[in-house]
């Protein structure tokens, strides 16, 4: 008599499925995942894992964590990152040491693959959530990530 039990099971599972979607239907107005973007621009918070652009965080004393090792530049598959570096005298030890002058980031060439962020040994760069990058001239998309006059955070290289 598996015929009738099959029918019973079929109806039961169909109703289970319908109850799941029914619950979604009733709660959808509260939990809608759609962002009505230009309207909620002020309150919109992008998700932590969203890949908008590469940024270099600086602390309040204008210090970053980039040692200028150029691993990100080597890892980048399409030449998005260019590091212009120099050798300067380190204040503490008095020795000559490599440091970055400009961390140039071409957003227009970036495919958001994230290899540079994975490869960075000092976690100097990370993902930013900004996505409003439309400009009239593509040279405006070439950015220098380290702020002017910024220095390496002490203790990063240890």
């Amino acid at each position, binding site marked *: 008599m598996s015929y009738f039990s099959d*029918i019973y099971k*079929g109806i039961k599972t*169909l109703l289970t*499925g*319908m109850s*799941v*979607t*029914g619950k*979604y*239907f009733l709660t*959808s*107005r509260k*939990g*809608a*995942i*759609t962002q*009505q973007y230009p309207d909620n621009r002020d309150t919109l918070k992008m998700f932590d894992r969203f890949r908008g652009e590469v940024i270099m965080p600086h602390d309040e004393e204008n210090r970053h964590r980039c040692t200028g090792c150029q691993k990100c530049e080597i890892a980048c598959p399409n030449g998005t990152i260019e590091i212009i570096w120099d050798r300067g005298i380190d204040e503490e030890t008095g020795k000559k040491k490599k440091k970055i002058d400009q961390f140039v980031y071409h957003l227009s060439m970036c495919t958001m693959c994230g290899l540079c962020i994975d490869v960075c040994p000092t976690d100097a760069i990370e993902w930013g959530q900004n996505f409003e990058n439309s400009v009239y001239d593509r040279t405006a998309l070439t950015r220098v990530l380290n702020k002017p006059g910024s220095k390496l955070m002490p203790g990063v290289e240890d």
Partner: protein
Amino acid sequence: MIRALSITKGIHDWLFSIMSENAAHLVEMILIALVYLAIFAIAGLFLVLIERRVAAWFQLRIGPNRVGFQGLLQTMADALKLLSKELTGTEKADKFLYNLAPYFVIITALMALAVIPFTQDFHAFDINIGILFLIAISSIGVIGILLGGWSSNNKFALIGAMRSGVQTISYELSIGLSLLTMILITGTLQLSEIVEVQKNGWLIVQGHIPAIIAFMIYMIAGTAETNRAPFDMAEAESELGAGFHTEYSGMKFAYFFLAEFINMFIIAAIATTVFFGAWLSPFGITESIPLLGVFWFLAKAMVLVFLMMWFRWTFPRLRVDQLLTLEWKYLLPLNLMNIVIMALIVWQNLTIQF
């Protein structure tokens, strides 16, 4: 033959006073046809909008809410866009059949709409074989789909059309038999008479267990008849592009699209008439206001339309063999058994009457 609403009585008398009887009849028929065309267009557009909003809510989205208040004008705008689009077609298409196909689909939908009793007097064509007429008409619609698929000269369209043929021919049987189960109680095929019978309680209450089984079978088969998910293999997007209407564009595509939604409404309307007492209000609460019948009818039909949308956005698409297994191994034997049970119940007077 034509029972007009009491408001239209004036128009009827005025028409007959100013012209000969034949001319007046002709004008009246054209006017009624125009009214039904308007209902067709408005209901179709409205149903498309409802479908999109309901689908959005099922999927935790918002749906169209920009054009007009809560997106009410969205489908209007879509229709305008489709009207202004170029009608493209395949070079080697069978031009005559290709152009004919959408009209087959749309005319059958319109003809079925004519026999549906919206309320006591709002009933364009009260034929004495109403249910038979509806079943017959609903199966002509598939010819349009077959023609469209065949004449497009496109293999996806042809596969879609053939699947649609298989599906409609199989599931017609279930629709017919489940309605036949209810005919055993009513003893008539005329839709207005069927409504009269239900003044002692809706048929789904009168016929209790077999009626509920018949209703379930009817809803499954009805969903299959309209080629909607989970039975939408005729236009399975992931397999066949758009199935039988792959090669149609612009307004011809819109005809297929509108007809699909009107067919859904017709299936719901037949279910309303046969199982849920058509325009009768629950427990006769608004019996003194006959015009409210339209409201009750549409409310019941909308609930059933919502049920079909719920099916669509819950269940995955069936394979062809699963579809035929469901029909021939489950629905058909159950249906035949159900008819016997119903016959016994009617014979022994076990129906529930108020």
